[in-house]
């Protein structure tokens, strides 16, 4: 009989469970490592882009009072009074600088205003603070009388915010008109589209250079192909910095290429190649080419020459036969390579930072800027999250139209 008794079924199930637990134990160390060093930092970073309690912790009472504010005029004396007291407290604890920084981020030009006001408010003591606090505040700087400033403070005080995403998308929130395109400088959307365009150009270049080479390699004998593959892999074994620096030496105004061109008389003036997006594209194509060649080569190796022979024997000319038979069969390798190159180049940092100048900057360079220079980790996190979302979206689209199951990495 084919059916099992209950005891047999139970034994089989428990044996299965044991096997699964054993298998799980093998991956536990790696899992813990990845959780601690990869998943957790990224999650906390992404969390930062929406969770920002600093202002709420600095001036909790003012924000409490602002809850009843109608938003149409300057908040009432009582609210201003509470703020003056809190500012006084912060100034004494030397925390007013932090508040100044936060306010400045929410409302341009507030850094010095907060700092000077804090100095004035800090001089008030006891009853004076309670009575003249509000007036001192308003006297210190006319900006305190602006309604939109208080609106910005109210928003900055919220623990959970999507403001950084608005900034990252070149949008802003206005009390009267709602979400709109930011009136001041718009840089991020442009940078995203530039990043995508450059990644696309790099991917196309890699495909155009890698496809014929892989085809040639796949047609060689195993020994010779392996020898030549070492040459393809050689750049992998060289430091990234060395390779990028080599490109600087090649591309700079008095570099190898310009000297050569001027030497043979093709041009009288050197071309400006370094610190342009041209330099970024060239250097990154060179660096990412192996990621295209390897999956392509491995797929092409697996294609029996008899497919093309069959197409020819059936009467098709070589070029159409190639387009109809060989090319579709290499698509898994081509898409794997393209996806790898595209995704890596979208997030690439070092090379554009070194050879790209301002023209060849990509979104990752701006993210780094906000992490290291402007100290706006929240905005950096928002930009990073958007980049991640963008890549996931592209992957989804790719899966939709090409099919992820078609990817073959080797």
């Amino acid at each position, binding site marked *: 009989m084919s059916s099992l008794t209950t005891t047999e079924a139970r034994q089989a199930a428990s044996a299965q469970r044991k096997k699964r637990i054993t298998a799980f134990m093998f991956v536990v160390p790696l899992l813990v490592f990845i959780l601690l060093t990869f998943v957790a930092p990224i999650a906390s970073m992404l969390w930062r882009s929406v969770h920002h309690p600093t202002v709420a912790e600095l001036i909790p009472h003012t924000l409490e009072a602002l809850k009843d504010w109608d938003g149409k005029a300057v908040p009432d004396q009582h609210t201003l009074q509470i703020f003056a007291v809190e500012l006084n407290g912060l100034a004494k604890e030397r925390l007013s600088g932090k508040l100044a920084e936060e306010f400045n981020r929410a409302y341009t030009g507030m850094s010095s205003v907060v700092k000077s006001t804090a100095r004035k408010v800090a001089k008030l003591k006891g009853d004076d603070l309670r009575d003249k606090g509000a007036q001192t505040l308003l006297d210190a700087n006319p900006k305190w009388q602006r309604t939109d400033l208080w609106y910005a403070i109210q928003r900055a005080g919220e623990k959970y915010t999507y403001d950084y995403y608005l900034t990252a998308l070149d949008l802003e929130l206005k009390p009267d008109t709602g979400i709109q395109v930011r009136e001041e400088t718009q840089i991020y959307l442009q940078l995203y589209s530039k990043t995508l365009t450059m990644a696309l150009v790099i991917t196309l270049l890699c495909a155009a250079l890698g496809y014929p080479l892989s085809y040639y390699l796949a047609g060689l004998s195993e020994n010779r192909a392996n020898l030549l593959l070492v040459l393809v892999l050689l750049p992998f074994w060289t430091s990234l910095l060395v390779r990028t620096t080599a490109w600087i030496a090649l591309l700079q105004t008095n570099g190898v290429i310009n000297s050569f061109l001027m030497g043979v008389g093709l041009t009288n003036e050197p071309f400006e190649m370094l610190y342009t997006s041209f330099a970024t594209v060239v250097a990154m194509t060179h660096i990412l080419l192996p990621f295209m060649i390897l999956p392509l080569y491995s797929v092409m190796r697996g294609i*029996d020459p008899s*497919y093309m022979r*069959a197409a020819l*024997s*059936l*009467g*098709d000319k070589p070029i159409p036969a190639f387009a109809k*038979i060989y090319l579709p*069969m290499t698509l898994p390798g081509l898409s794997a390579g393209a996806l790898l190159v595209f995704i890596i180049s979208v997030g690439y940092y070092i090379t554009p930072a070194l050879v790209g100048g301002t023209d060849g900057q990509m979104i990752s360079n701006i993210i780094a800027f906000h992490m290291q220079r402007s100290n706006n980790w929240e905005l950096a996190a928002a930009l990073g999250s958007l980049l991640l979302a963008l890549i996931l979206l592209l992957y989804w689209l790719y899966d939709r139209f090409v099919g992820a199951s078609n990817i073959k990495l080797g």
Partner: protein
Amino acid sequence: MADQAGDKPFLQFTNVKKTYDHKSLVVKDFNLDVAKGEFITLLGPSGSGKTTCLMMLAGFEDVTSGEILINGRPVTSIAPYQRNIGMVFQQYALFPHMTLRENLAYPLKVRKMAKDEINAKVDEYLALVELQDFGNRHPGQLSGGQRQRVALARALIFAPDIVLMDEPLGALDKKLREQMQFEIKRLHDQLGFTVIYVTHDQTEALTMSDRIAVFNNGIVQQCAAPHVLYERPANLFVAGFIGESNTLRGTIASVETDTVTVRLEDGAQVSCLKANCTEIGAPTTISIRPEKLTFTDRLGTTGNQIKARFVARHYVGEYIRYQFETADKTELVVKNLNDSSAPQFSAQEEVALAWLAIDSQALDRPQAQAAT
């Protein structure tokens, strides 16, 4: 083997040679005339040059020297896609990203046939290989035998002049292989195309072919109809490669019109058909098929005789296989039909074995073997 006297043969290989490394010849002076509608098999061990000949005919390999002619016209200058030659590959080479219908329609589309005409043709050929209900499947969803049939239909659908088959049944199991042999024969009889078939399986070659060219070391050893190859092998290689063969060593004692007399190593003299060893005193190998060798009581005293000791008896099914050993340790095999008369022997029993002169041939004896 041309259709009519005076006509050029349909397909002709003349003095074809091929080298890959510019040092050694893979194919040495290949000559073959094929008539229209003939089923020719190139048979030989792997590396003997038979597939290379096929590839040269299809146009996937260059001919080093010599000429291949179709209808008297040299093909060397014609591109592979213009040769109108159908080909069935060992691994089928069905296009995996196309359905069966698309696979079959491919050669017709290339020939710019009208849509309904293509559809009708595809239907016809799907029916021909009994895969009507599978038209919209992809090759990956088919069994090996089904793929084989599609590959066959695809090679035939554009009515090529010649169909080449490169070990087409090599990937199938035994039973399916036999089934497909009949299938291919049926289609060949029905459609009348010319076939050049490459295989290393001698049974396959014997059952299917009109003529077989036996290859070894880039040379055609013999090209003849199956029964001739089997019963009148031209040399020792052919005798050994096709079917099983008993070999006895001796020297030529005298030469008659059709036969030669051979002195065996124990001094006995036997009579054999004349083959490629005709010099008096020359070392020779006599080849006798196991089913032609029998026990003396069957033949009486008309044939040649040799004494041998009984070694083993194997029950194979349709026949019984007996193993004997002569005084000089030469192994002899007798195949006896599994009927009531199949005798029993006791161990080491001395038995007289007999055969007719017309069932044996005096063939060459290579130096290496002569030395042992």
